C-alpha cells in the first residue's frame, strides 16, 4: 500500500502545488473530508475553507480556497480551485480589503447574477475575516 498520495492544487492562473503528501483535508460542500492514500474515488464541489496538507501527523501547509472542485482517486487528489491564498498572505487587513471590494461590487451590481456573485464574494470575505484573526 502506498503511504503517500499525489496532491495537485491548481488555480486557473497556475499550478500551485504538485507533490506527494501523507494526508490532505479538503473543504467539501457536504463537509470537510480527509483524503488518505487508497481513498475511494470521489468528485466533490468545494465551499470556502482551508485545504490543509499534512506531513508526519501535523499540518505542513494551509491554503484558503474560495471554492472549486476536488477529484480523488486512490493515488491522487486533484483540487481545482477558483482562487487559493496561502495562509501567510491571509491577514485581517487583507480580509478587510477583500470585504470592502466585495461590498463595492454589490453596490455596482446590475443584474440578478452579478448580485449573487457579489453576495458570494462578501460571504467568502467575511469568512476570511473570521478565520484570519486566529
Amino acid at each position: 500500500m502506498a503511504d503517500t498520495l499525489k496532491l495537485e492544487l491548481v488555480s486557473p492562473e497556475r499550478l500551485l502545488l504538485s507533490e506527494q503528501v501523507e494526508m490532505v483535508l479538503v473543504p467539501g460542500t457536504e463537509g470537510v473530508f480527509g483524503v488518505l492514500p487508497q481513498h475511494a474515488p470521489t468528485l466533490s464541489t468545494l465551499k470556502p475553507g482551508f485545504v490543509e496538507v499534512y506531513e508526519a501527523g501535523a499540518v505542513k501547509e494551509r491554503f484558503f480556497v474560495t471554492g472549486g472542485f476536488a477529484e480523488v482517486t486512490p493515488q491522487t487528489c486533484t483540487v481545482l480551485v477558483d482562487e487559493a491564498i496561502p495562509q501567510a498572505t491571509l491577514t485581517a487587513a487583507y480580509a478587510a480589503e477583500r470585504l470592502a471590494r466585495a461590498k463595492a461590487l454589490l453596490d455596482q451590481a446590475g443584474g440578478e447574477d452579478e448580485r449573487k456573485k457579489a453576495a458570494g464574494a462578501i460571504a467568502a470575505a467575511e469568512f476570511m475575516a473570521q478565520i484570519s484573526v486566529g
Partner: protein
Amino acid sequence: MPSLKDLRVRITSVQSTKKITSAMKMVAASKLRRAQDAAEAARPYAERMERMLGNLAGGAAGRAGAVPMLAGTGKDDVHLVVVMTANRGLCGGFNSNIIRASRVLIRELLEKGKTVKILCVGRKGHEALRREYKDNIVNAFSDFGRKVVVFSEANVVASMITELFVTGQFDVATMVYARFKSAMTQVVTRQQIIPFPVPASAAAGNADVVYDYEPSDQEILGELLPRNLAIQVFRAMLENAASEQGAKMTAMDSATRNAGEMINALTMKYNRSRQAMITKELIEIISGAEAL
C-alpha cells in the same frame, strides 16, 4: 533622378521607421515572454478540468436528461461562432488569418442552411466582419486583454455564451482562435465548445471507475460545465495573446530587416549620385579651363 536632398530625406525617414519597428519588435518579444508564461501556467488547470469532466461525462452522457450543455439541444440549426482576434494590427497575418478562417466557417455553415450568429472578441475581428455580416453579430468585446488577459474577462465572455445558450439562442458554439506553437507559427484553430466534446480517451478509460459524487453528479456537472466553458475561453484568449505577440515580433523583425535593406540601397544610390555630381562639376571646370 531624385536630387541628393530628396535621397537624404528618404534615408532619414526610413531610418526612423527602422527605429520604430525594431523597438516594437523588442516590446513584442518581452510581451511574448509574459504571454507565453501565462498560457503555459494556465494549461494544468484546463487539462485537469478536461479530465475531470471526461470522467464525469463518460458516465452521464448516455443517460436520458443529461445536461444540455453536454448533450446539445438535440438540434443543429443555429450556430454561434466566437471569433477571437487582437485589438491592434501591425502583427503580420495574424488577424487576417483568423478572420479568413472564420469567414470560411461562416460560409460553410450558411451554405448548409444554418443560422449563424457571431460573437467577436477583439476589435480587429469585429471591424472586418461587421461589413459583411452586420446582422449576424450578436455582440462584440473590444477592450479585452489590453495589458494581460485576466480570468475575469474570460468569465464575462463565458457567461454571455452561457446565457445565450440557456435562453435557447443557439445550438452549437465554435471558437476560432490562433493556437500558439512558436513565435514563427500560430495555428488557427476551430474548437467546438458547446456541446462539450467528450474526449474519447477520457470517456473510455475511466468507465470502470465508480466515483462517489458530492453532492450529486448532476449538480457537479451543472457547476463544472459553465466553469469549464470559462476555462476554455480563458485558455483560447491566452493562446491568442501569445500568438499575437509572436506574430507581431516576427512581422516587426522582417520589417526591420526590410528597412535595413532599403537604407543600404538608398545609401548606395545617394553615394553614386554624389560621385556623379562631383565628376560632372570637375568636367565642367576642366572643359571651361581648356576653352580659355
